[in-house]
């Protein structure tokens, strides 16, 4: 087990991808040798306890405000490595202003963005990232663009901002994808270590419980539906020019 994970058992549902992503982050922190100077800003939502799962100093931000909290931490102690861990309800809805402005300032922090197209903790309501036609407890007839607007593509949107140094979208459905995801997370932390500006990795994730699917079905649904609307890949990489 990576040093950067605590001994606390994950509280996530079976088939949820939080556990995989946590482990990848912890491995990256270990490999970069930054555990003793890394600070986590955990979100509100299913991953509210993320601060307990990492063997690093940390806090929990109010819903959506993690990028502002991380900004305060980083400005106060620029020698620390600060990362936020945020879901789609957190980052793409209530915290839209905070993530946009942190990215636009080129705030030298790293954000791991977990997009599972639904509100998890509150019981499966519509998120800004919910796909058109997708049923949730607040879109019982399926999300309708006229009534609820369109799913937001955050990585694409944030990559238009000059302060964004590195943004990539990944998923962790297969071993190959996991390897790619880890590479992206590592690059995001390296971007911060080098002081190049804002970095974000969006991870398309499953929520078998609120999607009403088995873990295997959920993985398949993610690949066949979410990954089509939210294409994987690097959206911005200004690390070369910044170096």
């Amino acid at each position, binding site marked *: 087990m990576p040093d950067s994970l605590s001994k606390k058992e994950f509280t996530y549902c079976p088939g949820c991808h939080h556990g995989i992503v946590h482990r990848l982050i912890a491995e990256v922190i270990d490999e970069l040798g930054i555990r003793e100077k890394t*600070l986590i800003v955990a979100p509100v939502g299913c991953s509210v306890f993320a601060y307990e799962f990492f063997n690093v100093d940390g806090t929990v931000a109010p819903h959506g405000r993690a990028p502002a909290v991380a900004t305060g931490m980083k400005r106060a102690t620029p020698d620390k490595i600060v990362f936020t861990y945020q879901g789609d309800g957190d980052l793409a809805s209530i915290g839209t202003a905070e993530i946009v402005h942190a990215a636009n300032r080129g705030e030298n922090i790293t954000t791991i963005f977990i997009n599972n197209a639904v509100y998890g903790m509150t019981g499966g309501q519509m998120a800004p990232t919910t796909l058109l036609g997708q049923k949730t407890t607040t879109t019982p007839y399926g999300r309708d663009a006229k009534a609820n607007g369109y799913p937001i593509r955050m990585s694409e949107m944030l990559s238009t901002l000059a302060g964004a140094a590195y943004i990539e979208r990944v998923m962790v459905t297969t071993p190959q994808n996991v390897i790619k995801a880890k590479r992206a997370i590592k690059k995001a932390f390296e971007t911060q270590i080098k002081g190049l500006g804002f970095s974000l990795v969006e991870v398309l994730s499953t929520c078998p419980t609120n999607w009403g699917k088995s873990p295997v079905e959920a993985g398949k649904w993610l690949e066949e539906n979410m990954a089509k609307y939210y294409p994987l890949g690097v959206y911005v990489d200004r690390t070369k020019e910044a170096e």
Partner: protein
Amino acid sequence: MKMLFKGSEAIAEAAIRAGCRLYFGYPITPQSELTEYMSRRLPEVEGTFLQAESEVATVNMMYGASCTGRRVMTSTSSPGFSLMMEGVSYMAGAELPAVFVNVVRGGPGLGDIQPAQSDYFQATKGGGHGDYRMIVLAPHTIQEAVDLMNLAFDLADKYRMLVTILADGMLGQMMEPVEFPPMRDPNDVPEKKWALTGAKGREPRKVTSFDIDPYELEKMNLRYQATYKKVEENEVRYEEMNTEGADIIVAAYGTMARIVKTVIHMAEEEGIKVGLFRPITLWPFPYKRLNELADTVDTILTVEMSYGQMLEDVKLGVNGKAKTPFYGRSAGVVPTPTEVLDAIKKAIGR
């Protein structure tokens, strides 16, 4: 050496001298000069100034900065302070020290940009959710505001609490000669053994405002309450003027108290002895002293630039021992000394 300074700018300079090197803020009248002053002055002392995208972001930047153990502040005016209330509650829950300056203007809603005292409830009774308190200091001159800055940061650190300087548009905008205390070393603050500094050679530290288990959360709440009790026992501050043998005592704070000081002299000429009781800490409120004073007079008149907010605390302090009439203007209207004198005469039947 005394220097002529605008209120907002004097408060900013005093904060820097108190060792504050981190300011996050968002412009709002009538205190934007404080934000502007910080933007030019902090770089000179290797400090950090950041104009946030909103007051919501501001208070969360403070949350993050305070987590690292460094002294941090913001300033705002009424609608801005309302926006900060989410973060205020979280910071109170996480026991994070920080200093807020609220230069109060007329409300509710957008209101106007003139001086008022109508944020008293918000500052002293909550504003944010949950059982929390913050220390509230109410200066009545620019010099006093300057002098209270050191105290504000020290109390915040000592009790791991939020401290608000509750001023008003008058104090923010007027100019007065002030004398500043010497510059303090920003590193010369008590060690914060809870601060997030990276888990080097120790167990990781966690700063949070919550526990999902109600029994554990209750323990946290009882810890906050024990702190608040200590503050109530040790940090009550007030000023008295002419209270001994007074015909009537007037309770007032901030700019309103300053007007009452003028009224005291006017009343003297008409043979009325007016005493002033001026709370400096609005929370913890000086209930005990006010209760003692209620034994010495028939009437304690409360005057406020609001429609009776501190009045409720005065009534609690007096506890029925004396009459507690009220006079107030609000919405940015500042009462004249003559108006206040008339209210005093009416209260004592003259």
